[in-house]
Structures are given as C-alpha cells and as structure tokens.
C-alpha cells in the first residue's frame, strides 16, 4: 500500500512536470513583446515602485523569458519550488496572498453545493433504481439529463432572471449588499450567505445530474447481484435489503468518486463565480486570464493540476480502503 502510494505520487510529480511544461510553452508563446508591454505598463502605473528596466529584468528573471523554452521553464520551476511565485500583475500583490484572499470563498461555495448535491442526488438515484422503468425512474433520468445538458451560463442567467429580476429576492451579482458596512457581524454573515444562494444553487443543479445517474447505475448493478437475490430469498425485509445490503455496496464507488472530487472544492467554479461576481479563486483566475496575468495563471493552473492529480490519487486509495476485496499492487 505504502509502496503503491509512493509510486503513484512519483508518477503524479512526473505528469505535473510535463503538464506545467505544456502550460509554460503556451505562456512562452504569448504574443510578441508581451513581457515588454507588461513591464512598460507596470512601470507607468501610478504608485509603481520599479522602473521599466527593473520590471523587465524582474519579469525575465522570474519567468526566464529571455532564455530558451526549456531553460526558462527550469528557471521558473526553481523559483516556484522555492515558494517564490512572483507578484500578481493585475493586483500587484504576491500571488500567494491573492490566492489566500480568494480561495476560502470558493471553498465555502464548493462545500455548500457539494453537500447539497449529495443530499439531493444520492436519494433520488437510489429511488430511481429501486423502481426501474417506473414514472419516477423516467422522470429522474430526464431531469438528470437536463441538468447535465444545461450550460452553466444559461442556467445562471435563467436563475438570475427568475429570482433576481422577476421575483427580486436576490441581488443580480456581487457578494455584499448595499448597506453591508452598516450591518452587525451576524448581519454581514447573513448578507454574504444570501448572495451565495444563487451561485450555490447553480453549482448544485449543474453537478446533480451526473451523480444521480452514477448512483442509479451502481445501485442497479448491486440490486442485480447474486447476494441481493440471496438476501431476498432468505426473506430479509425489502427495507433492510435496500438500506443495509444494497446501499452499503453502492456506497463503494460513490465514496471513491466523491472522495476523488474533494480536492476540487478548492479549485473554484470559474464560470459561476464570474457570472455572479463572487470573489473566489475562479473569478480571480478568469480576470487574470483575460488580462494575461502570467504569474497568477501559472500558479492557478499548477494548483488545478495538482488538485486533479490529488483527486485521482485519493479516489484510487479510497477504493482500496473502502472495498477490502481490492488489493493494490
């Protein structure tokens, strides 16, 4: 187990190395004179502490843009590994600080929708599987299909239109109400919570469909298994068959996938956060991408890649932990 884990981690590191290399090549090939333009812009910004030449030298040193791709990449990697991710171009604060400022909003948003997703999707999926080919089953199938097929931006716009424009329950976007500063601590919390409702609902609806289908498929598989037939033949009450024998076995794949998606709670929801102007890491990275803010983009993409690899690792390890039949080698 330990050997397997270490092997996987090493593999992940190698993959990460190449993923970051591809991204670096992409950044390296940004339109000509980009660094120069950026340095000039940064130097002419009010309150700029460095001159153009200093910025240029700084940026080139940071990203090794004046060297070849490979050498430059190694330079960047070296400074990144020593924890020096550079200054955010768009906000002129250290990248790590910007990360710290934003990631928790994303995490809260992700967590809330994750919990909602589990609460709604798993029971529905199980119900659909229990009554295969019934109306409930078809209904669930169609609903989950609609959820999967809904583009995030359309759903978000639709929710805004219904709940903000027509009903006026929520603000269109943003994280704070107009009189946020005059509220008490608890009032501030409630205000922010209210602004998180629509984004959380959007994220939940988007993710609910696939989990519902996944649950249903796995539950059906388990229900068709021999041990369920045996349990029924023994005369075990249907309730116990479903809730004890079937459900626990259905949980095995569910736990592994959900466990694997845990790291992604930190990744932020790029489109949703942008549409609702939630100052999470997704929104910040979107702005960075639009403005060509290389330090933050590099950081964010590295972060996301690490999260993806971590998710894969967790789900593989969980598989072995939850299901004792699985032996990792």
């Amino acid at each position: 187990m330990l050997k397997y884990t270490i092997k996987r981690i090493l593999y992940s590191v190698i993959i990460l190395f190449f993923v970051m290399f591809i991204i670096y090549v992409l950044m390296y090939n940004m339109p000509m004179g980009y660094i120069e333009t950026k340095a000039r812009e940064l130097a002419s910004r009010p309150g700029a502490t460095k001159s153009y030449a200093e910025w240029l030298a700084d940026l080139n040193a940071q990203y090794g843009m004046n060297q070849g791709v490979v050498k430059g990449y190694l330079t960047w990697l070296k400074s990144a590994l020593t924890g020096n991710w550079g200054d955010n171009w768009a906000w002129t604060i250290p990248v790590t600080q910007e990360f710290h400022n934003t990631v928790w909003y994303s995490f809260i948003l992700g967590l809330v929708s994750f919990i909602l997703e589990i609460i709604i999707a798993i029971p529905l999926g199980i119900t659909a599987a229990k009554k295969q080919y019934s109306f409930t089953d078809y209904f669930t199938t169609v609903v989950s299909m609609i959820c999967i097929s809904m583009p995030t931006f359309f759903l978000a716009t639709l929710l805004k239109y219904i709940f903000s424009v027509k009903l006026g329950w929520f603000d269109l976007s943003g994280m704070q109400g107009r009189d946020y500063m005059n509220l008490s601590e608890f009032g501030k919390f409630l205000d922010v919570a209210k602004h998180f409702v629509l984004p959380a609902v959007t994220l939940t609806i988007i993710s609910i469909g696939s989990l519902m289908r996944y649950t249903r498929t796995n539950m059906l598989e388990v229900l068709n298994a021999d041990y369920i037939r045996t349990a029924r033949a023994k005369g075990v009450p249907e309730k116990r068959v479903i809730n004890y024998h079937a459900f626990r076995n259905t949980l095995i794949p569910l736990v592994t996938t959900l466990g694997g998606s845990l790291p992604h709670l930190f990744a932020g929801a790029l489109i949703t956060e942008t549409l609702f102007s939630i100052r999470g890491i997704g929104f910040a990275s979107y702005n960075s991408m639009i403005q060509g803010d290389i330090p933050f983009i590099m950081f964010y993409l590295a972060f996301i890649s690490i999260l993806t690899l971590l998710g894969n690792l967790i789900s593989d390890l969980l598989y072995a932990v939850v299901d004792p039949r699985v032996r990792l080698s």
Partner: protein
Amino acid sequence: MASYDLNEVLKKRAAQKEGMAAQTDGSLALDDVSRVKVLSPGRQVFKRFIRNRLAVCGSVILIIMFVFSFLGPFFYPYGQKQIFYKHDKQNVNYALAKENTAYNGYEIDASLPVERNIINAMNSNIKKMIEAGQDELTLPGEGVSYLIRKEIPSVYTLSTMESSLVCSAGNSVVKVGTYSMVGKKLEFSVDEIPGLADAAAKEVKGVSGSFTADGVEYQFTRGEKPKTYDISCEMNGIVYTGEKPGDGFEKALDTALSSGSSFAFEGKQYILDIKGSRTDVYEAGEPAAARVFTKYTLDTYESGVSLPDDFRALALMAAVSGDSFTCDGITYKTVPENEAIIILDEDGNEFAEFNSFSVRRYSGEDTMSYALKKAISAKVEEMLLADVKTDVMTAEIPLQEEDGSYMTDENGEFVLSETEMKITQRLAGEYVINCDQINFIIDIFASPSGTHVLGTDGDGFDVLARIMYGGRISLMVGFIVVLIETVLGVIMGGIAGYFGGWVDNLIMRLVDIFYCLPSLPIMIILGAMMDAIRLDTYIRLMVMMAALGLMGWAGVARMVRGQILSLREQEFMVATEATGIRIKARIFRHLVPNVMPQLIVIATMSLGGVIITESTLSYLGLGVKHPLATWGTIINSVSSASAMAHYAFIWIPVGLLICLTVIAFNFVGDGLRDAYDPKAKR
C-alpha cells in the same frame, strides 16, 4: 426484344411456392426458415434503438435541429448579418422658438464697400446705441466714415460717407523738436521757442524724463538716432492739418464740442471723433445707406415660400420710407405695426410679416406654417405671463406617412393632424418644441412579431436567422472537434493497445498528461491571446476547433486501448497473426471495427459536451467573434444585466435550443449504448 429481369422472376416463383405451401399445409413448422426472421446485427441494433422512446425522441430533435440550421437558411429570407431598419416615432426637437436679439444685415447698395470689422461690430454698436438712447452713431475714420441710424424701431441703417481730417481740438501732444547730445543742438520742428535749447542742454539725460521751461512742461524720450532725444509738449488748442475753413469755424466747433455732436458749417458737415481730451474733426460727405440691419425675421403667410435677401432689404427700406416697393415685378406695400412690419401684396392681402420672434424648425429650415408659428408664439407669451418653464400644447402639424415622408392631399397640400407638443424653455427667450416624428432608424431589440418571429437583437439582426446560422457553426464545431478527438484517440489508443509494453506506457503517460490539462482555462487563455493579436474570426474558429480536439482525445484513446487490450487476446486476432496480415491492417481493419460501437457512443456523448464548451467560450466572448453568429454569441449580445432583464425573448430560446440539442445528443448516445450492448442496459 422483351426485357428479362431475373430478380423479378425469382421473386414471383418464391411467392408462388409460398402460396402453394400455405394452401397445402396451413401452418408452419417450428424450424421453418420463413418463421424465424433473421436480422442483421445492424438491423438488430436499429430495432433495439427505436424501441427506446427517449432515444427516438432525441433523434427526432436532432433531425429537426439539423434541418433547421442547415436547410433553414436556404428558405429563410434573412441573412445573419442583415441589419433591419424601421420607421418609428421618436420624440425629436421639432422646432426652436426664440426672441431675436441679434441683428442681421442685408445689402441695400452692393457697390458701397463696408469694412468687415464694422459689420462684425454692428450688434455691439446697436446695443450701445440702445443703451445710450441714441438714434445716430457716427464711426469717423480717415477716408471713410460710417453712420448708423435708427430708422424705425428695430431697423437700423448703416451708411458710408467720405471723410477727411480737418483739425484736432483739445489737448494734443506735439513734437517740439529733436535734441542732439553731440552738438548740444535742438532742431525745432515747430516755431522756434527761445530758451528751450539751453534748458534742454541742462536737463536732458538718461532714457526719458521731463523738464520745465518757461512754465511749460516738456517730455523727452530717446530718439531714433543714437544720442538724440525727441522733445514734445502737450498743447492745448486747435491744430489744423489742412487748410483752415472760414472764420467762425472755431466758434461753431466750440459749441459742437460742448454738445459732442456733429455740426454743419458753411454747407459742409463736420463730425467729431472724441478721443479722451482730444477731438478729431472730420469733414464728411453725404451719407449713403449701404446696409440695413434688423432683428426681425421674415415669416410668410403661405408656408414654404422662399424669398431672396433682396426682398428683405427692399421691404425694410420701404418700411423706413413708408413707400411701397417692387420685387420680381410685384409691388408690395408695407404697414408698420407694433414690434412688427406687415407686408401686403398688390391685392392688399397680407403676404408676409417681419417680427422679432422667430419660430423655425430645429434644423433651421423655414418650413413651418404661419398659423403654427403664431400658435407657438402665443403659447410662449402665455408661458411668460404664467412664468412656467415647460408647457404642453396641441397644434396641427403635417402628418407623416409610415415611411417618414409627409402626407399630401390631392391638391398637394400637407395633411395636418393634431399633435401634442411640449415646449421647454432652454435659455432666456429660447424655447425648444418637442414632438413625436417618424424617423428611419435601426430596428434594435424589436419584440417578436410577424416579420421577425423572435424579434431583433441589439444590432438590428433578425434573431431567428442568427439562431439558424449559429446552429450551423455550433453543430459543425461539435462534429469537427469530435472527429479530431476520435481520429487522434483511435490512432493513439490503437497503437498503445496493440503494441503494449513501453509504447503503451509512453502513450498512457501522455494520456495522463492530457487528462490533467485544465482545458477550460487553457481555452480561455487561448481566446485572450487571440484577442490580443486580433486574429481573423474564421482563423479563430479553426484554432479553437483544433485546440478543443487536441485536448479531448485522451478519453477516447483510453477507451480504445482498454477494448483492444481485451480483443487482442481473442481467437480471431490469433488468426490474423497466423495468416500474416500486415500490422496496420490488423489494427485498423480487425481491431478498430470491433471498437466501433463504443466509439460511436462515446463520440455522440461528447458532442454535447463540445457544444456546451463552445457556447460557453463564445458567451464569454473568447470563442467565435461577434458578427459571426453562434448560439453563445447570441446570448453574449444580451448578457448585460439590463439587456438580460428586458430582452428575454432573445436569450431564452437560444439557451433552450442549446439545452435541447445537448439533451438530444445524450439521449441518442444512451440509446445507442443500450442498443449495442443490451446486457449493460440499466
């Protein structure tokens, strides 16, 4: 020769046999071939597929969608970049009414030249005269002098007269002489003043100064030549420039100076130019009227008559003299009235009127009817009395056709209609009249109607047409990207699965890397980069499709490899090896077709995903660019909060269309999977 169709004959024979068999036996044996209907694998899959209601539903939606977006544009009359215009009511500035304060000049005698600065200063001179209560103002000058005279209220004439300087009276500084330091000599330019040379020799030094000699104060300044000084003194009295007029002139001048007005002496007219303590006296000739100035504007009773400036000049001069005048062979009479001059034509009918309150169309054209002008000025007077800034009136103005032109009856007269007009005071004495007029404008955000089934968007494009063309691009992008994905995936997966070993290991690590690449952020970055270098829309589209395809092949490759790994061990592959078929053929002729079902399913399912990604990118403005329509850009055009709230008829249908298409692809994919592999059906 009669034609002979073997197929037909065989069919007939079979039918005959069958008929005989049915007659003789009546029932079929259990193993009868005609009893068991054998279907080809393809037909079997098809049969299973059409039994799935959701899948059939999805297929129908897809077919409709394809017909709609690929054939629809051929039958739909509008293009995707066609801009629509309309005639619509707009509240415009219809007219401007103002109390004239500025005086306009008209030429009476074009042969008399008038200096430009005199004409430019007319308004201020007249203002000066009104303030001072003067009726006449002379503007003396050497050569030509001018005379402004108030003839009747608000009408002034400007006359020119020849003039020459006669004398200067009062205090004038006279140069006495030039003093030279070299010879200590004073050269007098007037009569010699005794003793002055000595006084100058004593006092003159430095740059300038003054000294007193015999009780008279002299000034000196540096002269033109070095070491010389100009000495001058102030003289009181009359200095003649030319010949002295006869006796008694000075007496007459004295009386004139005390009153400050011009005077006549010996049949000649003299005018004064008072400059502080000095007065220049000019001899002036007969004044000849050159221009006439008035603040009146001319309104004709019949609308649309344009009169030349000559007419105005003649009419004003006639009003001054009280005579009639002739213009273009017609004789007119003028009748002065309070703050107006009325002009009657030959029959004594009122023809036109000069007044100081002008009402004109906002563009400055004089096309409004007299009655309307009068109504507006009456209303403005009423407003002045009531002291209100805005008011509303109804008046008859020419009615417009649907296309913005004016409606006329059979006599060519304008058809009038009652229109509500709003009068607003803008400045003191200046009023703007607003009313609705039909204008030719771009038809933006038109609500759904017969001509535009889904309305028009913010650029005046027809939304339905754009949805059709957008569907083309969206579907095409989906297909091309999936094609790239599949081809790449099959090649890489096939090679990895077939060869195994280090090749497999290498390709699978590559798959891992591409799996790990965050595709949406990379697409956004690519979009921003393409924005930065202003790539052409069509090239963008290609780049986008290539990038999406490149990033999506990993899943296909993984699936193909897995399938091939298991297929490789089967007997038919051993047979291909034994018969020595080439490796390329083994992979692509024998292995890949066995993966086809899964491939079709995975491709169908990923089509939906690609369409969503493309529309998301276009929605963010980073995919296909504006004039080109895709479903994403159509929604993007109304993505601002206010447009989203007001023009739901644009984005809701498009969004539903995206949803519907993606759902349909997913249903079809599901149905295909179940049809290919009934055992896996859940």
